[in-house]
């Protein structure tokens, strides 16, 4: 099932024009019912008109021809604002396209606008945005997850057909799961980060959101690959992957711990039974000894990298500047007034763990645990084709519920951060709705560059669940 293919076939049969389709999505995006957009692309209708002409001439070539896409507001789109949901960049206009955007444009995608997020991608609820919190489309009193909350909402609420977000510690998978859509965190290096505003460079990855797995695959195929502008990008190995059923899937033992909500555990059991019944997989529990330390390691590494990456916002080269009589006061006021509470907290923590005398005690130790986490994952992936676990220990929580206790907010990422620390690929997929009507999703983790296995297996599962 692919909405991309369905819409492109409408164009090919001259039953609809890109202008008509984009207007439908734009109407919803303009209403902005869930505060999912920070800004819209004012030229999108003009760009759609150009594609309308091509339809009439029968020149439909791009793989995303006339497909409305939204982009997280930390990815540069030339000529559009890129705020990172921060006051410090509120008027920043991107002077060039990120590599992923160049690729989308080459395929004739239509960029609808830039989506809401936690400031500089630091958050799990989309409540740390200088442009106000976004709302979950299933219950407006609840959070959509973060940090790419706006991207997940835009796809879930049909404000865009596809979206691109970034995942540093779960920022694609958590909102995808909370909003009932697919969200892929690719292998570290599989997608160029050129033009992505840096948060924690050894963890950040750009990835797609979509309602159907085939659409995730199409978008990922377009954005993946080596980029000379990003030396941490890799040549993506092209290979055919034919899963041999039943697959061997490992279920993380911690998925059934007391920290996980009961309904998530019973749904996971239901999912396992379904796949066993359909002879798609055989399951066995596995353990990662260092799993419970992953959150501490993640916040040491990510904060350290953030404190360095965010040093560039000083009010001189770009962004917000506070008026002052001398340089030092200007720096101080600019950063005090420009950054929000969570960003300041993480910069200070990062400065602390990198401080002489504490560097060995925290940062070096954390990097050692990171090696251990990677080894443990790889050992388990020798035995299993895929690893299965929840995306979040809770259902989408109420707005404000975790704001007073940042550590409880950080614990929302318990099932996602370890994958980023290991650099492995993972995909969040929707399974069912809870008794309250809230989405419940799980995630698969696989070996490096095995995204294709996710796509093949989930296409099969999608057919079973949705027919």
């Amino acid at each position, binding site marked *: 099932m692919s909405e991309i293919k369905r819409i492109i076939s409408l164009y090919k049969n001259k039953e609809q024009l890109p202008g008509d389709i984009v207007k439908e999505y734009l109407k919803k995006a303009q209403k902005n019912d869930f505060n999912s957009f920070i800004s819209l692309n004012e030229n999108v209708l003009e760009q759609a008109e150009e594609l309308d002409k091509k339809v009439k001439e029968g020149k439909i070539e791009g793989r995303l021809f006339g497909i409305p896409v939204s982009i997280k507001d930390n990815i540069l789109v030339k000529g559009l604002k890129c705020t990172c949901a921060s006051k410090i960049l509120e008027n920043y206009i991107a002077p060039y396209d990120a590599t992923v955007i160049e690729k989308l444009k080459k395929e004739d995608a239509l960029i609808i606008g830039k989506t809401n997020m936690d400031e500089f991608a630091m958050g799990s609820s989309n409540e740390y945005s200088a442009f106000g919190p976004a709302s979950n489309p299933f219950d407006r009193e609840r959070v959509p997850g973060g940090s790419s909350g706006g991207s997940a909402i835009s796809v879930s609420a049909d404000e865009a057909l596809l979206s691109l977000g970034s995942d540093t510690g779960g920022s694609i998978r958590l909102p995808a799961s909370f909003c009932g859509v697919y969200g892929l965190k690719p292998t570290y290096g599989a997608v160029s980060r050129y033009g992505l505003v840096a948060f924690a460079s050894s963890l950040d990855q750009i990835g797609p959101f979509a309602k159907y797995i085939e659409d995730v695959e199409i978008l990922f195929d377009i954005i993946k690959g080596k980029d000379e502008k990003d030396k941490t990008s890799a040549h993506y190995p092209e290979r055919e992957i034919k899963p041999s059923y039943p697959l061997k899937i490992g279920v993380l033992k911690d998925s059934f711990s007391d920290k996980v909500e009961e309904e998530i555990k019973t749904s996971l059991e239901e999912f396992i039974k379904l796949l066993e019944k359909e002879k798609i997989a055989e399951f066995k529990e596995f353990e990662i000894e260092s799993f419970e330390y992953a959150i*501490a390691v993640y916040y040491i590494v990510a904060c350290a990298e953030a404190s360095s990456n965010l040093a560039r916002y000083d009010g001189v080269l770009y962004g917000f500047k506070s008026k002052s009589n001398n340089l030092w006061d200007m720096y101080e006021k600019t950063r005090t007034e420009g950054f929000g509470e969570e960003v300041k907290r993480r910069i200070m923590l990062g400065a602390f763990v990198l401080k002489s005398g504490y560097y060995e005690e925290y940062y070096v130790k954390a990097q050692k645990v990171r090696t251990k986490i990677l080894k443990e994952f790889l050992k388990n992936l020798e035995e299993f084709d895929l690893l299965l676990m929840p995306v979040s220990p809770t259902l989408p929580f109420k707005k404000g519920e975790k704001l007073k206790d940042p*550590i409880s907010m950080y614990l929302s990422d318990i099932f996602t951060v370890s994958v980023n620390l290991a650099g492995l690929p993972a995909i969040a997929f929707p399974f069912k709705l809870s008794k309250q009507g809230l989405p419940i999703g799980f995630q698969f983790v696989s070996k490096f560059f095995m995204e294709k296995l996710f796509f093949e297996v989930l296409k099969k599962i999608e057919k079973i669940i949705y027919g």
Partner: protein
Amino acid sequence: MNLKEEIDRILELVRLSKEEKSKYEEHFLKMVDFFKKIDKLDLKDEKPFFYLEHLKTELRKDKITEFKDKKLLYDNSPEFRGDFFVTESPIE
């Protein structure tokens, strides 16, 4: 300097207001305590994570290219005059 004094020193360096300082201090101490969890692990045989094996970190050759949209770049600066970014003097 003990840990609390070190944290106080960092909060002093970032010149927070008294109100802000007390808010951040409590969380800071909790987080540092949380970080100490990793001491429970035996790490004597582990090497610090450096980079993933599939990524070859070759340096690219320096190549001077002209950036065509300089205006877009400069327009993002709070103050730009001639060919210079303008800022307050570092000397009083």
